[in-house]
């Protein structure tokens, strides 16, 4: 409450409350007050420089098995074609597109945290942004594979790119599937650049601290000759801010384009104008749930309580709640407008969604995405780690179900009753899905051991002698 007692001339408050009245409750500091520059650096670099914990080996062993499953699934797919999956006509988009949308959505939290929260001066992003950005990269890697694997002839994937070819082949630019190629590849490129730019000063710190000559060369090359001069920092800050500005539209554009894949068609349940913002909110919802799913165990395993505080968890839970409410609004709005439209097909599709063959998936979705997050209104729940973790698992499953409801639920009952069919994933659908999960975590395990998982220099910025000044009151 230093702010309140400060006098007006020093920048305090217009009117000072008398000491007997309670002021605003003190916030948990974003960094344990006992930390200084040295301890922050030591703690974060120790995640990489300490002896590899045995738990890491056990985890990698299990993930290695998962990677083998992944390789087998892709290999068998290449040998036999997409017939090994459960897709049929009319449900030509099954697990592949569900998982594509699921993974790409998860990536969005990273971009939001790194770009938008930076522009909004939200300092709590600092100790989680690196983890979230890495998660984005790995999730986009998993997502990007699915449409290519779904092509049937994945070796011809480059046909999606517009290039002058002797076959006079040119992509259909009116198709959102082609927009996807550009949206996702731009997203992957900018995310990678942003992630790497953020790493440069930290790689220099790693270079300076490592005792291993080989690693010094590797980190040294990665740090691009960073010397930490004032000019370096000045240019760096400007570059970082510009990249944040460039990334901001990407938070919205990528998932909007993904939503266009559905919305520009005329299939009931797909053709809905709310789709772009509702998909974006869903992506951020899923992304924050995944960040929490990763951060909570990581924080416990490496005892990062002083760097990733309950305030971080609390804030992320709040973002999850807000975006969850937006998603719930989307569900409600589809039901209301299906009724309001007066159109037969709109009413049919929503009735079928709620009571039809896949009604179980809709009600499970409501449980996971609408009912479960409501517990996050309570501060007690938000400060209870097992409860938050459990709720985030609900959201992870719920966001997968959402795409199942949208894709399968709409496709299996189109305008033509003669081509109605049921759909179910086969063994190979599930094995590939599990395989990408293993790939995602495998990359994450490597990242934790090779690079500083928390931004060192940004965390050090939090140790400002006048820290109370930088935190916005009111």
């Amino acid at each position, binding site marked *: 409450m230093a*702010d309140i007692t400060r006098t*007006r001339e020093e*920048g*305090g*408050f*217009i*009117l*000072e*409350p*008398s000491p007997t*009245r*309670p*002021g*605003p*409750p003190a916030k948990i500091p974003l960094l344990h007050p006992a930390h200084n520059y040295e301890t922050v650096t030591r703690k974060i670099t120790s995640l990489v420089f300490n002896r590899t914990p045995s738990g890491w080996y056990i985890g990698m062993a299990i993930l290695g098995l998962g990677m083998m499953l992944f390789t087998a699934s892709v290999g068998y797919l290449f040998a036999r074609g997409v017939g090994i999956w459960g897709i049929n006509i009319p449900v030509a988009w099954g697990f592949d597109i569900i998982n594509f949308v699921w993974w790409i959505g998860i990536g969005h939290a990273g971009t939001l945290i790194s770009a938008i929260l930076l*522009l909004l*001066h939200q300092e709590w992003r600092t100790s989680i942004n690196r983890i979230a950005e890495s998660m984005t990269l790995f999730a986009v890697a998993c997502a990007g594979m699915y449409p290519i694997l779904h092509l049937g002839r994945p070796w011809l994937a480059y046909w999606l790119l517009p290039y002058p070819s002797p076959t006079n082949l040119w992509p259909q630019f009116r198709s959102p599937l082609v927009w996807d190629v550009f949206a996702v590849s731009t997203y992957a490129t900018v995310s990678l650049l942003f992630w790497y730019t953020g790493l440069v000063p930290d790689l220099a710190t790693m270079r300076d601290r490592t005792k291993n000559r080989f690693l010094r060369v590797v980190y040294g090359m990665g740090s691009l000759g960073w010397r930490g001069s004032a000019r370096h920092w000045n240019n760096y800050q400007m570059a970082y801010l510009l990249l944040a500005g460039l990334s901001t539209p990407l938070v*919205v554009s990528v998932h*909007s384009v993904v939503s*266009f894949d559905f*919305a*520009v*068609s*005329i299939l009931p349940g797909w*053709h*809905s*104008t*709310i*789709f*772009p*913002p509702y998909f974006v909110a869903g992506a951020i919802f899923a992304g924050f749930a995944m960040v929490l799913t990763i951060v909570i165990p990581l924080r416990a395993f490496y005892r990062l309580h002083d760097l990733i505080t309950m305030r971080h968890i609390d804030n992320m839970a709040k973002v999850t709640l807000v975006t969850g*409410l937006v998603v719930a*609004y*989307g569900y*409600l*709005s*589809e039901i*209301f*407008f299906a*009724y*309001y*439209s*007066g*159109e037969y097909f709109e009413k049919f599709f929503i009735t079928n969604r709620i009571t039809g063959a896949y009604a179980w998936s809709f009600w499970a979705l409501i449980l996971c995405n609408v009912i479960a997050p409501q517990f996050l*209104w309570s501060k007690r729940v938000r400060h209870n780690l097992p409860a938050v973790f459990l709720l985030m698992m609900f959201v992870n499953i719920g966001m997968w179900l959402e795409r199942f409801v949208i894709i399968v639920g709409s496709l299996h009952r189109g305008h033509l009753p003669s081509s109605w069919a049921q759909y179910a994933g086969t063994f190979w659908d599930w094995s590939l899905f599990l395989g990408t999960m293993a790939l995602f975590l495998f990359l994450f395990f490597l990242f934790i051991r090779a690079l500083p998982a928390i931004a060192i220099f940004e965390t050090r910025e939090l140790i400002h002698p006048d820290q109370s*000044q*930088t*935190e*916005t*009151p*009111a």
Partner: protein
Amino acid sequence: MRMVDTEYSAPRELLRTQTLALIVGIVGLVLLLLGAFLPEELLGGTEQFWRSYLMGWTYWTGVALGSLGVLMIQHLSGGVWGATLRRFLEAAALTIPVMGVLFVPLALLGLPYVYEWTDPAFMRESEILSQKTGYLNTPFFLIRMLAYFVIWSVLAVLLHRWSSRLDRTGDYDYASRQARLSGPGMVLYAITMTLFTVDVLLSLDAEFFSTMWGPLVTLSMILAAFALMIVILSFLTVRGPLSQVVSGEHFLDVGKLLLAFTIVWTYLSFSQFLIIYSGNLPTEAQWYVTRLQGGWEWVGLALLVFQFILPFLLLLSRGLKRDPRMLVRVALLAFLMQYVNIIWLTVPNWHRDGFYLSWMDLVAPIAFGGIFLMLFTAILRARPLLPLHVVPRRHPRARTYTEAQHAGQ
């Protein structure tokens, strides 16, 4: 305790503004009423009267409702920008009950001139429309409107009252009460605003529907409200007592938010257009087909240029956002363009074969604006222009002159 109330109390000029607004409002309403008795050749008549009435009323009620939304958002998000604008938002939101009362004449006398669905014979004609009579009928419409205004009024009154008590007592409990109400309040707001925008604007075309409508039109109202609040803030800073507290950093904050709202408005508008254009289904596409021919396309183009492209390019400049004299012009443009938006949303429903605008359509917003601003200034004058206890004297990100020099700005 320091006596600071006088320092931030409303300047005397506001009393003059209040009187002037009242005169403008009364003159405007008289002109409108005269117009109601003019023949159609002079672009008057009862039908025209109620249509213009709806347009003017919606525009200014939108400002009040948008302010309520921003008010609750800033209670939830925190931030200096919100605390600085809070008094203006509270005053604008508190006009909601009166704006609700102003709808009563239209509800009792004017609905058949405005909404095609009030005619049961018309609704029976089409198979799709006959499906919608359970929702689109006069009694249910009136019940819904009453419910919305009761909910919004309660929210506005409570937030206003707690803010006054916080001023008086300095008891932080009132601040946390405001935040606690704003969470569920926003949920209610989202639902009621969606239904309200459907009832008042979407149902002008009984056939058309779009799931984006609620968010899109609500955001337009928020954009209009936010732009007007910037205009008032800079007016009271440049000419009034706020210059001691409100600095370039404050304007930078609100300018950024104005830019963000502008971009989101465009994003939502374009998404709705692209999806309906690609789907090309008769019930939806006809809404845009009407608006892209017969002169209406120029209104759409004006919206694109003056509601998005121009403000977007201007607001990218940091210097412009920091200068209240410049920012106020962009904000004023955004605010006025929202009336063009109202014209675009309403008039083509009544004049499907080509551009049409009556002089009454332009008098109505001035008349309602007079009434709104009279109420607004009256409420604003009663309290200090800044909420006590919550606004820091110096912007947290304000830099000293030397710091700014070092950063090369």
